[in-house]
């Protein structure tokens, strides 16, 4: 308003222009006809955009209203996903995945809290078990989120109910993230989000300038959706060979609770964290000879991590001590030993739209002599040190609509590897399609990735998001 009047009065008082031309009218889009063209390399001046044309009222017609109530938001996707084993597996079906999934995500904001509900409706042609098991993610219905979030004070957040939880610095490697994983989904070619299985938990977060604290309590132990032989064949140490549907493992799940703690702070631009966990091994790590059931022995984890910029990229370091409390001396052959784990990673954009991430990871088995002494001669022992290297290559092409990616795990000590190539194309705002594979390599049948050698698979999927 002031500028308009200043301009007007300037023009009037100086009488540089007749009053009728007092304010410069908006020029049509393109080039002004009445101006000489500028020297080569320069086009003529652009027309003024609307809004800088002060010839009419300068009062903004700008839409700046505020809608006060957010309605119930519903989002989600439908997808079809199919895949097959690239070699025969005498213990599993040739179809590695064949399913249609509808995910519905509801969110409603109330005065004092927000409610979140994410449900998956699944038609699974491979695992035809129809009755629902929300713990193991079996059946036609899976609940990924059912929680409420609220802030009792301005320094505290609470999230109560079924939720997906993640922390730590590793990329597809986890040391202090003891929240449930779904390894079957991961190895079968479901979307990466399905590696994370839901937890039924109370998450309380406290924030202060000194440090932030997350305290997560799972009143009932939430196991991984672990490899049990139903969908993925694996090395069964009790049989001493690879087994699958011929010998689906049965477990004795503990009835106790889990507690996870994280204390974290950002110092400058470096993110530092301390972690603690008190619960159980998340996948079977023990065996009860009396009843033939696999067990989840007691476990405590203590750890720390740091993440921040280094050179042209991001570096991270994470350590953890796994205290296997049911076998603290390492002498029980039926309970996993304690471990020390360390992870160091670095990620950098190499050239435009091409990013490389590398990680080194070590599992150091404690009380190794006791472990070896406790094993029967027929057993195939683990190494004391399991070294693992990973690389992630991500290349975005076609205006970032076509993404090529390769995640590779390679263990020089186990002599095995796992490759996850994928090509993902965003057809438009709703539709996307992808093809990918899960390829396991290894000489020996009992190493971490080598045991999955009969599960090599290729998959494809189409998804409609809304």
């Amino acid at each position, binding site marked *: 308003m002031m500028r308009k009047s200043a301009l007007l009065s300037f023009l009037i008082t100086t009488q540089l222009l007749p009053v009728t031309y007092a304010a410069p009218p908006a020029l049509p889009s393109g080039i002004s006809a009445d101006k000489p063209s500028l020297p080569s390399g320069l086009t003529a001046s*652009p027309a003024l955009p609307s809004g800088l044309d002060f010839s009419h009222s300068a009062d903004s017609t700008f839409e700046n209203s505020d809608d*006060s109530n957010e309605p119930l938001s519903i989002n989600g996707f439908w997808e079809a996903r199919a895949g097959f084993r690239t070699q025969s597996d005498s213990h599993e079906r040739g179809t590695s995945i064949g399913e249609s999934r509808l995910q519905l995500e509801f969110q409603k904001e109330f005065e004092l809290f927000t409610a979140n509900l994410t449900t998956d409706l699944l038609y699974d042609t491979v695992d035809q078990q129809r009755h629902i098991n929300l713990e193991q993610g079996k059946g036609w219905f899976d609940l990924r989120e059912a929680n409420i979030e609220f802030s009792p004070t301005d320094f505290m957040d609470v999230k109560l109910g079924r939720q997906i939880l993640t922390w730590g610095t590793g990329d597809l490697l986890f040391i202090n993230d003891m929240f449930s994983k779904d390894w079957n989904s991961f190895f079968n070619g479901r979307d990466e989000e399905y590696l994370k299985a839901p937890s039924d938990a109370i998450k309380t977060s406290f924030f202060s300038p000194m440090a932030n604290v997350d305290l997560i309590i799972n009143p009932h132990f939430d196991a991984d959706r672990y490899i049990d032989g139903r969908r993925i064949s694996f090395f069964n140490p009790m049989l001493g060979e690879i087994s699958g549907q011929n010998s689906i493992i049965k477990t004795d799940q503990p009835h106790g609770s889990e507690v996870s703690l994280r204390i974290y702070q950002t110092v400058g631009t470096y993110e530092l964290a301390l972690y603690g966990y008190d619960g159980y091994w998340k996948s079977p790590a023990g065996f009860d000879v009396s009843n033939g059931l696999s067990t989840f022995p007691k476990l405590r984890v203590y750890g720390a991590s740091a993440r921040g910029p280094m050179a042209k990229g991001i570096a991270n370091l994470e350590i953890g001590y796994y205290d296997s409390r049911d076998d603290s001396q390492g002498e029980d052959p039926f309970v996993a030993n304690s471990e020390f784990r360390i992870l160091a990673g670095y990620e950098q954009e190499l050239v435009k739209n091409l990013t490389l991430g590398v990680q080194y990871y070590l599992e150091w088995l404690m009380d190794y002599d006791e472990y070896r002494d406790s094993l029967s001669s027929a057993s195939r022992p683990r190494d004391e040190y399991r070294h693992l290297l990973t690389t992630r290559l991500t290349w975005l092409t076609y205006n970032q609509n076509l993404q090529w990616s390769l995640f590779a795990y390679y263990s020089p000590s186990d002599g095995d590897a796992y490759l996850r190539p994928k090509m993902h194309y965003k057809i438009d705002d709703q539709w996307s399609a992808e093809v990918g594979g899960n390829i396991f390599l290894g000489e020996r049948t009992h190493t971490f990735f080598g045991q999955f050698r009969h599960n090599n698979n290729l998959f494809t999927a189409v998804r409609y998001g809304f």
Partner: protein
Amino acid sequence: MKKTIKNTVSSLLLSVGILGTSTLLATPTVDEIVNRTNFVAYYQGQDGKAKVKMTITDEQGRERTRQFVILRSDEPETDSLDNNAYKGDQKMYVYFSRPADVNKMVFMVWKHPGGNDDRWLYLPALDLVKRIASSDKRTSFVGSDFYYEDVSGRNLEDDKHELISTDDNYYVIKNTPVNPELVEFSYYTMYIHKETFLPIQTEYYDKNGSLYRTNKTLKVDTIAGFPTVTKSSMENLKTNSKTLMEYSKVSYNLEIPKEIYTERFLRKAPRKLLR
């Protein structure tokens, strides 16, 4: 009304003064222009918010859209150019709602002009807070024709600035990169509106001197006293791809708490603020 009269009177006096001593009308120095422009384009108010809709149209006419809310807070505590209000550190929080595959995703930046920005991405389906390696700032922002640098601002010290002409409406500034090997252009010209200091058109010339990329301001609204671009486009003449960026619900000086730009609010979006 009173104010208008007062303004008119003062501008009258001012313009009379201008007639008397033409030195007052002297063109500002090139540094004054680019500093003021950078302020107007990226730093107005202590903080700001906008809803943004991007429409990307490729050479075959296919359209893709992106919708997000952007929150921005400045480190410099005043709007005074003497206090570096045109080039200080900033924090940004970008909350995506469309397309569906990025719904509820958050992109957070701690911008350090002249240094590497800190960037985070929050992936809600995994509850994952990912730190992102600082990328080439002249890489497409979310698949559009705008680069990161177009959205968050290019460091003023990265270019040499020359005022090459002025006309009734514009200062025309030619910007030549200090380190040409770091960028894909040989120079770019900006048409800066004399009155508001808004960049109205920016033209990028490739290494052969051909125009290949044009940014146009299509609509300006004055919001809370700040002239604000509410519609702009970026056209890539090499790929024939074009992105239209439309802003709505722009507001300034909301007193956004600085805690918004932390992990807490990546995991738990400040929904009331994002409406």
